[in-house]
């Protein structure tokens, strides 16, 4: 089962993501992003991309992290399918994204223009972390 659900949004693509930990929520969010962009079954875990950054708060951190991964994909055609987060707090992340540079264009499914701030709130309910993300397509 996929670690995210598509939610209805007229113009764009929305996903509802959950995780048992904040780390897992981040990893599942990135997975959702790339699962929409590309056919991940055809992407190999060949290369690693180290991404460390800091941001103003939890939501901005998730937004900026996804935005950075998306930039790597849009410019360098680097598609990732696995994410390892070694350190995470409310304002900083240390992570490694694993995937490969794609040469075959038909691996791509959907062009995502941007990760938006739309309704982006990270919540913890009981033992589950949740957020909604809207990708502009």
């Amino acid at each position, binding site marked *: 089962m996929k670690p995210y659900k598509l939610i209805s*949004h007229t113009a764009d*693509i929305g996903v509802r993501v959950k995780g048992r930990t904040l780390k897992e929520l981040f990893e599942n969010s990135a997975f959702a992003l790339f699962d929409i962009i590309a056919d991940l079954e055809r992407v190999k875990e060949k290369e690693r991309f180290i991404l460390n950054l800091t941001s103003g708060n939890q939501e901005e951190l998730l937004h900026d992290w996804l935005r950075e991964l998306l930039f790597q994909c849009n410019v360098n055609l680097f598609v990732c399918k696995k994410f390892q987060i070694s350190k995470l707090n409310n304002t900083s992340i240390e992570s490694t994204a694993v995937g490969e540079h794609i040469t075959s*264009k038909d691996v791509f499914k959907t062009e995502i223009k941007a990760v938006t701030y*739309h309704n982006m709130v990270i919540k913890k309910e009981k033992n589950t972390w949740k957020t909604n993300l809207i990708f*502009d397509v």
Partner: protein
Amino acid sequence: MVGIWQGKLEKIDDFRWRIPKTYKPGMRVPGVVYASERMLSDIFRDKALEQVANVAFLPGVVKHSLAMPDIHWGYGFSIGGVAATDIKEDGVVSPGGVGYDINCGVRLVKTNLTEEDVKPRLKELVGTLFNDIPAGVGSSGDIKISFSEEKQLLVKGSKWAVSKGYGVSEDLEHTEENGAIEGTDPNAVSERAYERGKGQAGTLGSGNHFLEVQVIDQIYDKEIADVFGLNKGQITVMIHSGSRGLGYQICDDYLASMLKCLTKYSINVPDRQLACAPVNSPEGEAYLSAMRCAANYAWANRQCLMHLTRMTFEKVFNRKWQELGMSLIYDVAHNIAKIETHNIDGRDIRVCVHRKGATRAFGPNHPELPVKYKHIGQPVIIPGDMGRHSYLLVGTEGAMSDTFASTCHGAGRCLSRAAAIKACRGRSIDKELLEKGIYVRSKGRETLAEEAPEAYKDVNEVVEVVHNAGISKRVCRMKPLGVVKG
């Protein structure tokens, strides 16, 4: 009427509805929605009307916050949203009022071919267009440009393309702003935006972008159609694309920086996506000059795409494009913010008009119109979905006085992409279209389902509203024959 939006609309007339200023404390002006009564149930389905009300909070907003009949839920502004802010009265500019795809727009090219000429060679023509025009996710083209050349392109727009041999000077006369808006500043564009735009000039992109071979199936105003040289049965080509990755990145960059402006300038808006800054602030000026760079990129892009189209027609029909009569009718932006003069309550004032999924529609005799179109008004090009129709209209006096010279921009989505894919599961959209005589080629596997005709409102209804409301005038209608999708 049951929907997501639970507010109340007041009927103004058969095509206009008001969201009163009292709907939400903080609204500076009322909202006005252009729609027929029948269309309202679709409009109530998402939160677009709430966005129309939210836009009415923007500092400096004048007269009304508008929604065109193709309105649907967008980012900050609704798609189909129009608002003008008085730049002298601390009026603001908001990147959410333009959108990610800056100067997403459309151009219409005529030919002297008829349906009979094209029908027997339709598959060959569409197949060649599909092969020769770079499209699809992250597509890059053969037009490679260096960093310094990209800077030139951002200033000169279509003029850059024409100087490289991708078109003729007549094309520029028939492009909004002559294909190069002034007031750019290439230094306001981030390195990342340059990086994303580098390989993408002359590429169609994906999603709702397309190139369509069409036939005119209906003439509404013979006199104006004659000025364009358009007749029933004639073949046209429509190109819909924008500023590609460069524009997306500029929007993304400035949305982030303008969030901080809300505090800096003590601006109170009900939605962070309406992040904005006064037009006359350093942040507002920087955004506008970067946005204009993206607008020029988009005009150059569509100019290059038209050039590639002309070359493909030459190849398939073995005649020069000039002999095929492939001149440009017009090119117009759908997502842009422009500083214009409008008469508000008897006074000419300079305003920043945000058109987010809306088309400029200058009426006859506007000084910015090309000589050939001065007496008829500005051409307005409205693409529909790939199974129904598209339209050519002209701007009117009504648009000048009522809508800051704006009208609709397309059919407008009514199903989300996910819902469209679900509705199309197990069906073959390309076969269904072929049965209707429309040959479609698409790069993306899910694009056809996402873009299926039923995902959109009926463009005929949308156009009927803007025509009957007097904010633009129908000239002719085109039916798709061949479609290239990204």
